[in-house]
């Protein structure tokens, strides 16, 4: 099967992002934001780094409120994440769009990005995007796994042991949050530079033709 099947009718192209991807993106985005902000409320109760988050930025207001949000929204994130992973594997979305690029392609596209020469084609994923999206999916999976480990260090003792025990698993959970936050900074910046990508993630506008075959 070719990577990009030709459209059945000339002029009618596939959407830049299929509807399931758009829905799961926004449900996941809302869930990750809730998890992060409520996580900050929990973090503030016993900070392991020399700073706390401003209360106005947190969700839940205090420890119990933060936990209530955290262990409520985790089900949304969990369901959305499982649905996305299944869809991505079954539909070819991962193979087509997120297959990790070679180091040469990353260097080429990163250089082009930093020098402002990389054109953004809606519906096509360049090497830097692939790397970032695979990275954030991995970071979210790590956050979920370490989150389960520190939520249930006895009942899921094997998982907690996999991450080196409760204290280490808790630190890895925090590190995964930081990785996701850094991704968000880059991601939102790129969307601000290319606002039409935001439109493409909301409406079903068609993918743009690829500049030239590589």
């Amino acid at each position, binding site marked *: 099967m070719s990577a990009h099947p030709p459209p059945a009718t000339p002029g009618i192209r596939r959407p830049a992002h299929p509807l399931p991807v758009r829905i799961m993106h926004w449900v996941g985005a809302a869930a990750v934001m809730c998890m992060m902000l409520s996580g900050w409320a929990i973090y503030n109760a016993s900070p392991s780094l020399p700073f706390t988050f401003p209360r106005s930025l947190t969700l839940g207001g205090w420890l119990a409120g933060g936990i209530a949000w955290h262990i409520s929204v985790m089900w949304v994130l969990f369901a959305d994440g499982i649905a996305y992973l299944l869809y991505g594997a079954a539909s070819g979305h991962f193979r087509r769009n997120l297959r990790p690029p070679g180091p040469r392609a990353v260097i080429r596209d990163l250089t082009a990005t930093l020098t402002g020469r990389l054109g953004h084609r809606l519906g096509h994923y360049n090497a830097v995007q692939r790397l970032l999206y695979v990275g954030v999916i991995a970071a979210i999976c790590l956050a979920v796994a370490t989150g389960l480990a520190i939520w249930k260090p*006895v009942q899921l003792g094997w998982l907690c042991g996999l991450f080196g025990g409760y204290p280490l698993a808790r630190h890895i959970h925090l590190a995964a949050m930081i990785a996701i936050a850094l991704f968000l900074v880059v991601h939102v910046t790129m969307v601000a530079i290319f606002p039409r990508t935001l439109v493409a993630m909301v409406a079903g506008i068609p993918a743009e033709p690829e500049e030239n075959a590589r």
Partner: protein
Amino acid sequence: MTPLRLPRAKPAVTLDEIRPELARIGRRHALHRGLSLGGLALLTGCDLSTHSGVDAALWAMLRFDDWVQAALFSRTRLAQTYPASAVTRPFRFNAYYAEWQVRETPPGWQLAVGGRVADKTPWSVDRLRQLPQAAQVTRHICIEGWSQIGQWSGVPLHVFLRRVGADLRARYVSFACFDGYSTSIDMPSALHPQTILALDFVGRPLAPEWGAPVRLRIPTKLGFKSAKNLQAITVTDTYPGGYWENQGYDWFSGS
């Protein structure tokens, strides 16, 4: 090795009891999904203390999580134990008040026993020491996130409950303390082999700040469930809540 299968005790919460709440949560979730980041700003005020619909949904979700946790709980799965050399020093004091407010054991103290038990005779420390004892070096994990390893020994709660003729089919065991604290746990967790009425901490009788004369030590739950300075134990079918639980700490809080 075949895992030992104990007859599953009656769960603290059954699905039928929370089904209407679950339906309500489902609708709330649909609402949540419709909210964008702008809506998020409106939600940050929801902290379990308001009478908003969102706070009601959060409380309902806490009950759902309690049900999931009760289902995940295993009576035979043990918390990790450590060598005595792993005990954290200095051990951190923690209570809902400052350390200088710790209360000494009241004169003539006895542990009261009430509710669905056959024998309501109060217990002295000496009598408790005549029961079979168990020791453990386990990790105490605070709901705030920090943790420390301690060494406790005392009477396994399942031994005590059987001794006083408690109705082991009751749903809750509640603990009242003479420092004004209170908490409660589900019966399956109460019968877990590592749940003990601790009399000693690191080889010595409990000092007041560590919960003298008797405290609960339950390594399968978060630290705030290990109530110190016990005054009364009650076996009941009526949800007893607790000091922190009534303010919004997740009731089951299993580890």
